């Protein structure tokens, strides 16, 4: 399974989106048991997949990760690695699929009764690991805990539109919203929206940090600090036949090289993420398979639109024409990134598209600059911090813009000072990486960054037209309508260019070849661990 086939699989899930979710679960369950490559099999049942090998249950998967588990409380943690672990233990109302659209998890159905009244129907008979049934009261308790000001829940803002929660029956939950918010369903698929059992929660500051107890495919066994965190199979998981593995061991390998070497020495079976510098070497190793690809995080230059020269959209667009993305990918990201020639959302993400609005054309860039009143070019500054890609990134920007007569002075400082300058508006250009995996809905990235009152609108950009288009994405509720709304909004965003969008990051996983059925998610989720099995 190389990178291409895994990405093809991710895209091919698309057509299934509108099928009854229960059918999807059934088809996938059957497919996983009968075939090694479930995602290829699921969307096209007519063409029966060639049975390569039969999935065998059992075994231990040793996973080398970038750090030790720190905060085990699913509601408070913001550390990616903790999220990777706990999503195997907890279930949510919904769960992101490989295209990051919400799929049924504890909820089998959901429906907007009115634009501000959202009803979820829960799956019956799902048990917490302590044997108690999961009910609507648990959902209410969990969501209220996330919104509790005394609990530092990192993602609380994504469901802040919830006004009140009703539980008309044991298996029905109703969310009353303060305003229309179509993004809330996708936001509820964040792993941090885990449904927890009240009896497992201790008073803060301990909360749920001492152990994990959910209703997911694996159960918490032990955490030997600094050595490994062990999860064991939940024999009563509601999806029959899953998980296949007996145990998951999460082993902290903080040093990047140590992580790669441990995989090559066979001391772990799987590592994530793979340091980009090691991808080529690992691909050459026949005992190892590398998967992964475009990720939801993107990098661009935030432009200060409140000051000259970037208050003029023509100047901002000139920059988008002037920077060679290929040069940027090669020199600043070692070739492991995707060029962005328009707004930042690209497939396999459901709301992404590959429409290109820009190409490398220095003549157009020069003409736009001349039209804006800078026929002889201009001088500007680029602030950077100590983030690893910043220095090579700045060098590429400087040399590329020089070719169209824009002189860039690089102002380097430590990352926190640079970030503060960005927030306070003491900058002209600032490179930013937006970690899209945290925001599974396009609303999460665009509202704060690019609307007039957005909390991270440090480009100080205000376009009432774009605000209107983005709000539309929250008011319509069907996926197709939302997708269209964001396509139009992105077109407007591309024309306005408050940021020069440059690249989307790649993220890789590597595993011993005996690890089967792993699928990469563009938001770095590890949901497929419940489907993974080991060849003996």
């Amino acid at each position, binding site marked *: 399974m190389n990178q291409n086939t895994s990405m093809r699989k991710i895209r091919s899930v698309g057509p299934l989106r509108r099928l009854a979710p229960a059918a999807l679960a059934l088809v996938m369950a059957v497919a996983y048991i009968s075939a090694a490559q479930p995602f290829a099999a699921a969307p096209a049942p007519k063409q029966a997949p060639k049975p390569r090998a039969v999935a065998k249950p059992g075994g231990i998967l040793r996973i080398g990760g970038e750090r030790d588990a720190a905060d085990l409380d699913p509601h408070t943690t913001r550390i990616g690695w903790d999220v990777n672990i706990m999503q195997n233990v907890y279930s949510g109302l919904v769960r992101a699929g490989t295209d990051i659209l919400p799929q049924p998890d504890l909820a089998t159905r959901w429906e907007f009764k009115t634009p501000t009244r959202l009803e979820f129907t829960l799956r019956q008979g799902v048990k917490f690991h302590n044997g108690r049934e999961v009910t609507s009261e648990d959902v209410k308790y969990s969501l209220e805990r996330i919104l509790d000001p005394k609990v530092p829940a990192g993602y609380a803002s994504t469901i802040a539109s919830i006004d009140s929660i009703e539980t008309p029956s044991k298996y029905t939950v109703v969310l009353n919203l303060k305003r229309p918010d179509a993004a809330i369903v996708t936001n509820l698929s964040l792993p941090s929206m885990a449904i927890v059992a009240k009896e497992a929660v201790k008073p803060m500051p301990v909360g749920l940090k001492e152990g994990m107890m959910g209703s997911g495919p694996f159960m918490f066994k032990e955490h030997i*600090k600094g050595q490994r965190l062990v999860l064991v199979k939940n024999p009563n998981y509601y999806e029959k036949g899953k998980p296949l593995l007996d145990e998951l061991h999460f082993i902290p390998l903080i040093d990047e090289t140590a992580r790669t070497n441990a995989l090559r020495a066979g001391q772990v079976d799987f590592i994530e993420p793979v340091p980009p510098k090691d991808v080529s070497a690992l691909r050459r190793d026949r005992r190892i398979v590398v998967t992964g690809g475009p990720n939801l995080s993107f990098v661009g230059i935030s432009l200060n639109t409140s000051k000259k020269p970037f208050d003029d959209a023509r100047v901002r667009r000139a920059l988008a024409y002037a920077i060679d993305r290929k040069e940027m990918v090669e020199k600043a990201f070692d070739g492991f990134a995707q060029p962005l020639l328009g707004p930042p959302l690209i497939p396999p993400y459901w709301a992404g598209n590959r429409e290109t609005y820009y190409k490398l054309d220095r003549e157009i860039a020069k003409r736009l600059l001349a039209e804006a009143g800078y026929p002889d070019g201009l001088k500007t500054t680029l602030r950077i911090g100590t983030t690893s890609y910043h220095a090579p990134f700045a060098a590429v920007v400087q040399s590329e813009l020089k070719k169209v007569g824009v002189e860039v002075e690089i102002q380097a400082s430590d990352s926190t000072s640079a970030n503060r300058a960005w927030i306070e508006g003491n900058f002209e250009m600032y490179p930013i990486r937006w970690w899209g995996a945290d925001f599974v809905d396009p609303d999460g990235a665009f509202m704060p960054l690019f609307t007039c009152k957005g909390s991270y609108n440090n480009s100080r950009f205000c376009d009432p037209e774009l605000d209107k288009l983005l709000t539309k994405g929250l008011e319509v509720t069907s996926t197709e309508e939302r997708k269209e709304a964001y396509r139009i909004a992105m077109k407007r965003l591309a024309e306005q260019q408050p940021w020069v969008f440059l690249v989307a990051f790649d993220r890789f996983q590597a595993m011993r070849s005996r690890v089967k059925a792993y699928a990469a998610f563009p938001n770095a989720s590890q949901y497929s661990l419940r489907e993974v099995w080991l060849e003996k």
Partner: protein
Amino acid sequence: MTRYIIQKLFSLVLVLLGISIVVFTMIRLVPGDVVDFLYGLYMGSERMNEIRALWGLDRPLVVQYLDWMGRVLQLDFGRSLVSGRAISEEILTRLPVTLHLSFMAAVWSVVFGITLGVIASRFPNGKIDGMVTTIGMLGLATPHFWLATLLVLVFAVYLGILPSIGYIPLLEDPIESTRSLVLPAVALGTTMAAAVMRMTRSAMLEVLSHDYIRTARAKGVAERGVFSRHALKNALIPVLTLIGTETGKLLGGSLIIEQIFAVPGIGQHAVEAVLSRDYPVLQATMLVIASSYVIINTLADIGYGVVDPRVRYD
């Protein structure tokens, strides 16, 4: 002697107090706090300030320091802001691992360093001496993180005879435990081995030029006896001091070695705390590492007086 030890202990307390202030202020000078790390960029600054208030990070630094110090004096290090775990419990499980690793590294480097040093001094300026001196220079000049990666590549990835990561407690399985620490201990102890070797060699050469060695040879003592009974014993005094300070340095070196070999010691814990700006954890680990260093040095000073009868602490 007793008075000396009491004096030493008193200065130990002062040193630790100083360290606690330095550590406390230094990590707060580093831009970005734990709330920035955990919730930065995506959470509104108002909400972040609420969380700071929740954790008492909005109080004046002096108040925060006195509050922390007051609890440390009652041996309560508090809880980690990130993991919510009791810090003293965490340190008690991790410190023995670091001490085990440092002990193995120290034993290896002392045995290796003294042996080679004596051999080199037996044949000064000859071929063997040249070789040993070169090894010593290389050992001093090689950064241990580089050597560590090299050792992993050779012995774990290519030859596959030693584990590249992990730690098994000594009591669980002594053989596997030793195997799991061979590579980290070798990588960690190389600098110390080289230093001990060079010190042994030069001390031996110095002692061998003394009159009493000539006398010993003149009265017919065998060369082996001259070396082991007369020369080595005296040459070891400066070597012992060196071993004391170098062993202290091992604790610092283990910070990096523990990352590379995934050894769950206190160094690994400290690095994670630095990365996440987990103030209470970092303060506690630094205090523990610094005290270990100071205690080891104090022990070396006292040991010095025991070995060398001319040194008296009155």
